[in-house]
């Protein structure tokens, strides 16, 4: 009789989730489901609130990438005001967004995933975490802590606080950058780059030790989507939406934010609060696509920064172009950290960055507005409708992690087929099922516009859904 294994909560990910694996009599996998277990209701409860509150409220969707929600929300508001924001404000927003890329990628790589990579997928679960890392590999752990601090510190210097700064506003930002602060940030970039360098150099020496994981961690053909800039290069804040196929060929590009819903539709699965977006013209089955660091590297022509471009060449040479294994999200994240630091340096070298003119003011001039930016985890879409008083009437949010939902589901199937043997369950097998989810660095707080975290537990159920066995780590 088939059995079910439930992993609840999934740990070292950003949100509330569990995984159900159904195994046949032969112990082989029959089905795998990834459940996101939290729901929050932002799309509804913002109704009636003034537009100007949106960036600050929407940032509370997620404390890991609040800056991304600030950006997408403020851009949707800019669209509703029908303003072009001052050029210095555009650059300052970019600066903060890149700082967030660095801190968020550092968190994903060092704090959440590196315990698997450094201590081992099968290592003792009691110490397989950032604290265990601090004790066993203090230098590596300190690098992670300091790189994250670098990004968080910039956010604090710009916006007054590290989590939920109120600095990004419709029309621009609410405070300029002083020359003195600019110099402080610039001074900090050298050390951050050293850490980023030694991390990626080290990663490239260990990546080949994971052939089985590379082969089975959501390694399959899908489409990819991301923003690219007008030259077709890597983009994180603004730009045009591009979809490529699994061979790297462009399917559609130059999509304006306002046209997103011609190409993206969302499907509801009965087992998850996280919806499943798909490429609308192809339908849910063929329209599966991935977003995030891997997708951005796959979709862009070049990174547009010298060191990151060298890394991109190396990445494409070894991981593939397009790279199809989600294991390579880790590597792509490290390439983006390098690009992020180079981008921060370039912005700070631009005289305009300390300009006084950082905010345009206008009243609402449109009833329908869309803002799209790239969050560390992928493309983030905020779509708002307001009434004549500037009060919210409706919102739709499509969050980075959501786009990856179908690929995550398929990914846990693939990895469970490869590693889970229903005759004898081991902790290391189940950790790999979670680890494939970690490669996507899902932010489930975000993704259900929910608030929350993602726990995981494994249950073994029979074909009738009765629980036969349960595996929890303690």
């Amino acid at each position, binding site marked *: 009789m088939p059995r079910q294994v439930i*992993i*609840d909560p999934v*740990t*070292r990910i*950003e*949100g509330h989730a569990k995984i159900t694996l159904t195994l046949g009599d032969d112990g082989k996998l029959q089905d795998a*489901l990834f*459940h996101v*277990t*939290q*729901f*929050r*209701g932002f*799309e*509804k*409860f*913002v109704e009636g609130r003034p537009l100007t509150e949106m960036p600050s*409220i929407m940032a*509370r*969707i*997620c*404390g*890991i990438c*609040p800056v991304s929600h600030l950006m997408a929300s403020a851009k949707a508001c800019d669209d509703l005001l029908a303003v072009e924001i001052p050029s210095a404000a555009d650059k300052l927003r970019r600066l903060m967004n890149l700082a967030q890329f660095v801190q968020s990628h550092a968190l994903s790589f060092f704090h959440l995933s590196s315990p698997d990579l450094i201590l081992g997928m099968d290592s003792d*679960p009691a110490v*397989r975490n*950032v*604290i265990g890392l601090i*004790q066993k590999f203090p230098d590596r*752990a300190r690098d992670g*802590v*300091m790189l*994250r*601090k670098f990004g*968080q510190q910039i956010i604090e210097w710009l916006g007054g*606080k*590290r*989590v*939920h700064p109120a600095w990004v506003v419709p029309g621009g930002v609410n405070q300029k950058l002083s020359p003195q602060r600019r110099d402080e940030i610039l001074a900090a970039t050298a050390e951050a780059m050293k850490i980023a360098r030694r991390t990626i150099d080290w990663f490239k020496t260990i990546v080949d030790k994971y052939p089985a994981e590379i082969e089975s961690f959501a390694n399959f053909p899908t489409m990819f989507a991301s923003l690219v800039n007008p030259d077709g290069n890597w983009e994180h804040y603004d730009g045009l939406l591009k979809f490529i196929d699994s061979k790297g060929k462009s399917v559609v590009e130059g999509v304006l934010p306002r046209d997103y819903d011609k190409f993206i*539709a*969302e*499907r*509801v*699965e*009965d*087992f*998850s609060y996280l*919806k499943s977006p798909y490429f*609308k013209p192809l339908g*849910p089955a063929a329209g599966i696509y991935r977003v995030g660091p891997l997708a951005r590297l796959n979709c862009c022509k070049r990174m547009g920064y010298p060191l990151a471009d060298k890394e991109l060449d190396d990445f494409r040479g070894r991981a593939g172009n397009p790279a199809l294994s989600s294991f390579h999200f880790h590597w792509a994240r490290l390439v983006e950290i390098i690009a992020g630091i180079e981008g921060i340096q370039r912005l700070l070298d631009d005289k305009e960055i300390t300009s006084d003119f950082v905010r345009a003011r206008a009243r609402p001039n449109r009833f329908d507005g869309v803002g799209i930016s790239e969050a560390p985890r992928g493309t983030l879409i905020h779509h708002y409708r307001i009434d004549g008083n500037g009060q919210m009437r409706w919102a739709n949010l499509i969050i980075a992690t959501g786009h990856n939902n179908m690929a995550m589901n398929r990914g846990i199937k693939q990895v469970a087929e490869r590693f889970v043997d229903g005759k004898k369950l081991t902790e290391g097998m189940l950790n790999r099922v979670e680890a494939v989810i970690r490669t996507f660095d899902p932010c489930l*707080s975000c993704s259900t*516009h*929910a*608030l*929350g*975290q993602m*726990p995981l537990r494994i249950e073994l159920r029979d074909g009738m859904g009765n629980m036969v066995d349960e595996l*929890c*780590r*303690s």
Partner: protein
Amino acid sequence: MSANRKPKVATVWLDGCSGCHMSFLDIDERLVALSSLIDIVYSPVVDPKDFPTDVDVTLVEGAVSSEEDLHKIQVIRQRTKILISLGDCAVTGNVPAMRNSYEPAELLARAYVENAQSPDSRQPPTRGLPALRPKAQPVHELVKVDLYLPGCPPPADAIHFVVAELLAGRTPDPSQLTRFGR
């Protein structure tokens, strides 16, 4: 706290945005020193799946919003000596409580019926998922809370201060370091 073993500390994430947890990590280098003084026995950043039975201090982020949150917080209360409401969502309901002016069904309908285009399934999901409670509530409305650490999120310094004071055997007063709505 007993002197002969490291205090056991847990951090829990109910209906919150994880920002309070991020603020905890924002103690930066101090995390290194702290990691040798305490055992983090349960948290989104470590792997144990079951809440241990004898935890000294638990920091709770987020409001109580689903049936699962309620169940968790009851278990946690039984197994924890000092329970701290971490951040405004836990302390007042804050952002999650904004949904309280609507029925859960209305909230779900917006997300899963109106804003979704699936030809076959246009119903809120339920399979294997915890149901929403009618209202999101602050933690102390459901279980006893020993200490409040407000802020959205509470600043890293305030969180560090509270943990350090508890480790020193004192009762912390974080009111100089943080406030509601911060």
